[in-house]
């Protein structure tokens, strides 16, 4: 169990019902509780392609229902489900990239949004900076700084040590800042701190 985490009684009850009786109602309740979090992460991995993201969610639920009977509650259910979604999304994203080019820079294949209005410039620049990160760094930064997961949760999701998550986050932040500073996007703000 993750530090300080408390088993969600609703999740436990619903999983028990689903595993015991292949209960549609219990599954739908679990689906509705956790799919938004799974889709949000999948969305990032497949570069905002809705069809791909929802396919990832479907595949993740299929895998999850196969594994639920052996789920040991060593992490929160959502952490476990998002981890499965990440694995599915990674495979899909890699397969997609492989069909385009094996050696191309990640930032070149990420479909960036069209140039936004001036008021949205920070989000647009951060999006580009994150897209340029190596995959491992990018994953940790997105999970930690974008979605707010803890290092312990990320370690569970990605199958790495918590310390690895921390060090990758530090390098990812450094890389993002360097790129944004070079582009003149955050230089003034950070100097004023």
């Amino acid at each position, binding site marked *: 169990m993750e530090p300080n985490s408390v088993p969600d009684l609703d999740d436990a*009850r619903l999983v*028990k*019902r689903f595993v*015991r*009786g*292949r*209960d*549609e*109602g*219990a*599954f*739908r*309740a679990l*689906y*509705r509780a956790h*799919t*938004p979090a799974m*889709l*949000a992460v999948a*969305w*990032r991995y497949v570069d905002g392609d*809705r069809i791909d*993201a*929802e396919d990832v*969610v*479907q595949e993740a*639920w*299929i895998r999850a*229902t*196969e594994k639920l009977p052996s789920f040991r509650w060593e992490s929160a259910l959502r952490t476990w489900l998002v981890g499965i979604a990440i694995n599915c999304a990674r495979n899909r994203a890699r397969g997609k990239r492989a069909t385009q080019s094996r050696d191309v820079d990640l930032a070149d294949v990420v479909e960036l949004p069209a140039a936004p209005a001036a008021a949205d410039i*920070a*989000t647009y*620049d*951060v*999006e580009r900076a*994150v897209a340029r990160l190596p995959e491992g760094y990018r994953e940790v*930064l*997105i999970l930690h*700084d*974008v*979605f*707010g997961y803890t290092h312990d949760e990320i370690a569970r999701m990605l199958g790495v040590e918590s310390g690895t998550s921390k060090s990758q*986050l*530090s*390098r990812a*932040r*450094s890389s993002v*800042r360097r790129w944004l500073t070079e582009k003149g996007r*955050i230089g003034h*703000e*950070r100097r004023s*701190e």
Partner: protein
Amino acid sequence: MSDDPNETLSDAEQKALRSLAGAPDPSPELEDRVVAELKRRGAIRANGGWIMKISKTAAAAVIMAGAFAGGFAMGSRGETATVPTEVATTTTPTSDANQYMLLMYMRVDPAQAAADAPAEDPMNEEAYRAIIDEYRQWALDREKEGRLVSAEKLADDTRVMTGRGDQMTIASTIDSDRALGGYFLITAPSLDDAIALAKTHPHLKYGGEVEVRPIETTN
């Protein structure tokens, strides 16, 4: 204290990064698509099996609670019953008609009951209300016809006594795959008429079972 300058984010950085979290809501049809695929793979029980019976039964239980909540008792509890205005103006059942008990049963899955968890029902509240109204209307119609003697919902909390003396046991569950949820006491000229009337009760439509029992007079 760490001297890693990357340990903290400025407010602006935090805000910009969090803004990337935006993703659309899942498509409404995705849920049904996932469920259909899981059914195809056998991970979820298919419709038409006992799961749906439980689902409808759960609905029926709620419906019965709602239908009876207005109070249609005119017989044994007639003096204290809360009678809707439109019911109070109707006729009293004729004394020379035969009386029949319509017993409202609900199918129960023992495994579900043992799980100590009510079945989730996919129906929304609006759908429940519509069905509750259907039950109420059936009772009001019988009342207007002068055929309704009384009707009550029975609480789920039950005690079953068996044996005698020191051998008596009291159980809080019934070893059965169906549970009695309530009753309507009606009048009808004959058993066939009572059955014909029972067939029109919405309880059947929503997965419940109705048993028709003539009241046998002993005097």
